């Protein structure tokens, strides 16, 4: 998820509408940062949140200005400033072996919150879920250094393989009850911090906007099941989920997603793909390397390879596209708990049983190969990756590639080595016969449902 700066105009497409998602995405992210910098002057309360399991709906109903420290860190990578922040934190004592996002944030604190996008305001509240265990350790740093009150949101994840929890069943009810109890505590905390009374109607309004956003987002994802794929999930898609996170539940977010879907549909209707001649449809599993993402994508697009899907677009966008998850705005709080509990299992913690959803996504997006990107400092996505690859290799005849670098630490990007591996991967795909350029085929998903 990112802004701007990452990316150039689509290689093979010319938008027929005036809406340019890249330019509009950049503008929105720029506006968000401006809003952050200005929050103290406005006297607005500020909350630090992560992209997975964050109760943003409640925070928005209290008018919190949201800070996403992960996005600050990745932005420092995109803007080629992460090395300096990481160096500062390692000089302070942080290990080279821990999450580079955390280190960039520690570096940011050591620089008095001076970020390339502006001065990041101090938070009045932080929410850390257990979806990524590092979130909690990260929030404990804020507790220590900045005395930020922290609320740990415990979301029970997928317990085992073949875990089938259905809305309303006993397991879902037990998990939802627990999540709801925590939301009630969080609301109390928010009331104390802001001095405002909780407004259930406002929560319902925010949820309604999230519903609409998720509706369009699901359609956007489904549109990439088309051949040729209208966007690259690991380039354009990063901008889209940036908006999905930062503007979740905000009117601007709904409008962006609506226009994006419209624009992509028209692109699909014209048969325009992300790359001029789509030869290989790929699935990217893992997180991006934000310091070199453009380069990485270029290595694949040169061979006519496009990332039609990435699991990053699911777990890093809150996981709500991973099922029929819609808020019931007539019972906003209960529904928030129920949907959050399900999203945590279907969209986030299923990372630990990745083989199950990857098997499905390989079919859904008709991909010719999978690219696994192991991140040295991110155990959440990387620890089980090589084993998942081995499992899928044995069961499905889908070629795969495993490469390693880092989220934002440029020391771990080895251009020649990665290029060699990517080239070898495509040569192997070509030797297998390689698919011929594809003609557009019909949408097989539910994309295009009436809103």
């Amino acid at each position, binding site marked *: 998820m990112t802004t701007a700066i990452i990316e150039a105009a689509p290689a093979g497409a010319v938008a027929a509408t005036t809406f340019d998602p890249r330019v509009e995405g950049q503008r929105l992210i720029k506006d968000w940062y401006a809003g952050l910098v200005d929050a103290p002057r406005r006297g607005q309360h500020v909350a630090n949140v992560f992209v997975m399991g964050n109760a943003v709906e409640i925070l928005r109903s209290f008018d919190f200005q949201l800070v996403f420290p992960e996005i600050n860190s990745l932005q420092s990578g995109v803007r080629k400033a992460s090395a300096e922040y990481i160096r500062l934190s390692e000089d*302070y*004592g*942080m*290990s080279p*072996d*821990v*999450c580079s996002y*955390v280190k960039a944030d520690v570096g940011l604190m050591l620089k008095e919150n001076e970020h390339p996008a502006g001065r990041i305001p101090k938070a009045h509240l932080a929410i850390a879920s*257990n979806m*990524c*265990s*590092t979130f*909690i*350790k990260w929030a*404990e*740093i804020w*507790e*220590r250094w900045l005395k930020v009150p922290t*609320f*740990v*949101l*415990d979301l*029970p*994840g*997928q*317990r*085992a*393989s073949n875990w089938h929890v259905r809305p309303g069943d006993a*397991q879902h009810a*037990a*998990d939802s*009850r*627990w999540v709801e*109890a*925590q939301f*009630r*505590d969080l609301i109390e905390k928010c009331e104390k911090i802001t001095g405002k009374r909780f407004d259930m109607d406002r929560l319902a309004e925010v949820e309604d906007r999230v519903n609409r956003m998720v509706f369009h987002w699901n359609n956007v994802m489904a549109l990439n099941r088309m051949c040729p794929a209208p966007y690259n999930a690991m380039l354009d898609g990063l901008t889209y989920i940036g908006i999905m996170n930062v503007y979740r539940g905000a009117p601007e977010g709904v409008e962006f997603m609506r226009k994006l879907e419209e624009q992509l549909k028209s692109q699909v209707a014209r048969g325009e793909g992300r790359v001029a001649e789509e030869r290989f449809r790929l699935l990217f599993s893992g997180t991006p390397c934000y310091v070199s993402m453009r380069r990485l994508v270029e290595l694949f697009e040169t061979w006519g390879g496009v990332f039609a899907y990435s699991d990053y677009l699911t777990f890093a966008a809150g996981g709500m596209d991973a099922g029929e998850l819609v808020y019931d705005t007539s019972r906003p709080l209960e529904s928030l708990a129920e949907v959050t509990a399900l999203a945590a299992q279907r969209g986030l*913690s299923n990372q*630990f*049983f*990745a*083989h199950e959803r990857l098997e499905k996504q390989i079919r859904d997006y008709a991909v010719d190969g999978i690219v696994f990107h*192991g991140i*040295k*400092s991110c*155990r*959440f996505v*990387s*620890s*089980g*990756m*090589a*084993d*998942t690859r*081995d*499992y899928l290799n044995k069961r499905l005849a889908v070629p795969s590639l495993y490469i*390693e670098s880092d989220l934002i630490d440029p020391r771990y990007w080895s251009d020649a080595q990665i290029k060699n591996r990517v080239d070898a991967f495509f040569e192997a795909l070509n030797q297998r016969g390689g698919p011929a350029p594809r003609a557009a085929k019909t949408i097989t998903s539910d994309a295009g449902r009436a809103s």
Partner: protein
Amino acid sequence: MLTRVAPEKEAELQELLERCHAAARDNTVPAKEALPEGFTGTIGHFPVYFPEEIAHAGGLLPLNILGGGNKLELKHADARMGSFVCSICRSTTELGLNGTLQGLTGFVTHPICDAAKHLAGIWSRNLPEQLAQILYLPQNVNSQGVTRYIAAEYQRLRADLERKVGHPITDEALRTSIRIYNENRRLLRELYRIRRDEPWKVSCTESYLMMRAGTRMPREEHNLLLDRTLDLIRHRALPSQDKPRVVFLGGFCEQPPLEMLETIDDACFVVDDDLLIGLRWMTSDVPESGDPIWALAESFVERSAASPVQHDERKTKEGYLMEMLRSSKADAAILTAAKFCEPGLDEQVAWSKHLDQAGIQYLVLEFEEKMTSFEQMAMQVETFAESLLFALA
């Protein structure tokens, strides 16, 4: 070893400690026919804490899976886990893939870190016949409803184990197990009392081996072993030595090699530690009457220890470190972390900065269960101990 206790008693003690050592070295799963009486299977569980009473009551022998130590050669796991993953997760994977843990009835891991959570996926892909799962112990123990949630999670586990063993796990069986485990916890508290009050009588290494033996045998058997060993230790008349008193932190998950603990013992009295803290997670007795599942759940919230992988507003990490130093009258701390252990490495920084502010001396060490060379570490520890003695003189 200098001893004024009757030689035959010291010999018996050494024999018992050797038995503990042998148990600690054992990574294997007993064959069904070799299981102790009353047990029909085994549940492997990863650190830190697991409510063993539930498995024990179901006739499943709980085995704490503590990695492969420094004698295991990795032949499969290197290809299945990134090089940046900690040793205990990699060696546990190896033990699963090389067949050593093939005989487990089930394997349970916990949301202590992301690498540990991935073990459930690895298990389900490679050992599908086992009950492989994550027991979602909560990271928020401060919200209303947490005991109810944990109780529901324990009931889920109980039902899963019942299906596996083919019979109900009764409340009465659970209460019996709780009583046995309470006795075990009392004995371990006594062991740590001796460590604090008379550290010359039992070293950190010996204490660790005594505890670790319990991860490989039924608790009722471990209770007998501890009872006798503690009695012999109490009557040991070793002279005190001129060593600084330190606390050891960082052993809550990956196990430091024995040679590392021995190296520290040579130079310091380790008067408290967080080694195998999961076995001592309950700081006082779990209620032996009433609903046993509720008693276990409520104890997790109300009478539990602390670790870098458990968030609890009531127990800051610095707070429990300082309390450990205070209650054990330690002069200094040895702050260790396993290589690639994100929570441990993060905590090491926080603790060292805090001790800087508090003016308390500390030594920072990084270890791996698979490490085999200790010369450099010995030099660091000796230098640290000498500087402490000089400062305390």
